[in-house]
């Protein structure tokens, strides 16, 4: 891979991230000039106490001073203090990180089965298998996550009782190690399935249309003329040319692994980043929201960077651009 291509993409990613960090700062200052006043309105606090709080949350001084302090903090990996419980934002996020990575990561991997289904459906365009899988994909793709979630919850948790209704672990569980993991897994089955069902259709449809794009290409005819088997032509010549849209989609979705699934996490009381976002919005806990936004942007930017670099590997023509 050409170094200039990599460097160009790296610079692009870093500057986007810097822009987001700056934008993030002003966004929350514009939303609320002095959140401390509104947060503690109606409580009997003296002016001194309020000033003390304002200092603590880095809201005193000029906007420029605040900005400098914010950037300094950021470079140290400090995202400030949550309005709630006096805890560092980093801790709040770190706590919610594992459940989300576990849930959304698993379901994203599950949903990627859609890629294989889509490639095969597109290859046999118009066949019965294509018609059935495309219709099913359209159906699941168009159903909102919360709807699938409620239905699954109603059937498999409430009625049949096969799976717990929510949470990450059994309440009061003291299990550790493998036992803890199995318990978490048991809790994860339903929300992971819901997310996988919600996303599998998207992968399937994107992979299918990418495959259909390649169907009329002359190199497939050449590959057949060489005497290759039909499935070899698909795997070795068609799929490599149908990868780019799928890689883009996967990158975006992996970016969302760290933003959590707000609807599904709320339904299943899954203590992940989605639920943390929901709670922070309700607060509103602006420092936590600010930290979450930064994390989401950073992961989406990183995922796109990886996708760009993958493009360079998957399609040699990309690098010349």
């Amino acid at each position: 891979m050409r170094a200039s291509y990599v460097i160009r993409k790296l610079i692009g990613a870093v500057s986007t991230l810097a822009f987001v960090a700056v934008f993030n700062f002003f966004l929350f200052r514009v939303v609320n000039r002095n959140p401390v006043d509104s947060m503690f309105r109606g409580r009997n606090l003296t002016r001194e106490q309020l000033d003390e709080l304002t200092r603590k949350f880095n809201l005193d001084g000029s906007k420029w001073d605040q900005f400098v302090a914010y950037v300094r903090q950021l470079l140290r990996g400090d995202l400030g203090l949550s309005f709630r419980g006096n805890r560092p934002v980093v801790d709040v996020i770190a706590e919610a990180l594992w459940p989300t990575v576990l849930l959304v990561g698993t379901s994203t991997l599950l949903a990627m089965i859609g890629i294989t289904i889509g490639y095969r459906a597109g290859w046999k365009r118009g066949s019965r298998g294509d018609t059935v899988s495309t219709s099913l994909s359209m159906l699941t793709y168009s159903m909102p996550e919360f709807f699938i979630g409620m239905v699954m919850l109603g059937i498999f948790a409430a009625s049949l009782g096969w799976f717990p209704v929510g949470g990450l672990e059994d309440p009061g569980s003291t299990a550790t190690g493998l036992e803890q993991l199995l318990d978490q897994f048991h809790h994860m089955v339903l929300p992971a399935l819901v997310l996988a069902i919600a996303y599998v259709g998207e992968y399937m449809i994107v992979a299918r249309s990418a495959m259909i794009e390649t169907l009329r290409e002359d190199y497939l005819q050449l590959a057949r003329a060489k005497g290759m088997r039909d499935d070899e032509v698909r795997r070795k010549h068609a799929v490599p040319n149908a990868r780019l849209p799928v890689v883009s989609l996967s990158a975006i979705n992996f970016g969302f692994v760290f933003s959590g699934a707000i609807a599904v996490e709320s339904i299943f009381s899954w203590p992940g980043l989605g639920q943390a976002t929901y709670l922070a919005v309700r607060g509103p806990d602006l420092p936590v929201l600010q930290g979450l936004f930064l994390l989401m942007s950073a992961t989406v930017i990183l995922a796109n960077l990886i996708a760009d670099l993958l493009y360079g590997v998957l399609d040699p023509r990309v690098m010349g651009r």
Partner: protein
Amino acid sequence: MSVLELRDLRVTYRTEGGPVPAVRGVNLTIESGDTVGLAGESGCGKSTIAAAVLRLLPKGTQVEGTVLLNGEDVYAMKPGRLRAVRWTGAAIVFQGALHSLNPVRRVGDQIEEAIRLHRTVTGAAVGARVAELLERVGLQGAHAERYPHQMSGGQRQRVLIALALACEPTLLIADEPTTALDVMVQAQVLALLEELQRERGLSLLFITHDLSVLTSTCRRLAVMYAGRIVEEGPSVDVFARPDHPYSAALAAAFPTIGDSASRMNPQGLAGDPPDPSALPGGCPFHPRCARAVDECATNDVALRVSGPGRRAACVHVKEAADG
């Protein structure tokens, strides 16, 4: 034994607008080592014939008649046998300017794939064989590492020729291999094909719309119109003294090099090629024919002997004894 024999080949495409007959009864024989040119406008069915020989037509296409490749009926073969015959019995030189090479795979890799598939060479010798093939078509062994987009149109065409030779096919089908190249490169590629043909005693079926190209490359010539052969014979004779008005128009469309009169006055052919799904009655060429008479609108003349080794399908051709 003939390398290729087409007996009353008929190909009908199935489209949403109904069946479209692309090839309507073609008889063509290529003897071992012979070179045959197939000429005609786009849509006359000539490329369909190339695809039909290796059974590469889209699923659902109706194929009637017989295709014998080295004496074996291609349409009676089992899938495994068909795959084995593809590229070894007959290989196609595709058009390099189009996307005949896979853009995301190195060209050497694409040649190697054919060799490994048919095990013409195995193991460590494969790489050497790829380099040898590339060098034979005027490229360097190092070109194997290139991607198609890193090569010029002429180089890509050479790669496609090397690719077609990879498994030592008995018949080489060149499907408009020079169409999209500029004139200088066209001449180089033609010279290369002629050289390879002589050197290896290849049987060649050369498909093009450019009649002038065929006279130097091919011994025999067949002119197609609306899915049928309308004239055939030794290429020099057909080009110099065409019997069918369509061949005459086709020959006149290209200026003869060195002949300033023809250069200043290329003869075009009025009208468009006919729509294969709605052919005119009688001789399908009659609406565009300068020599058409009343009979042409009703009488669809079959090929008849018009001279030594020559046949043409036109009412003006007086039946002559084949000599």
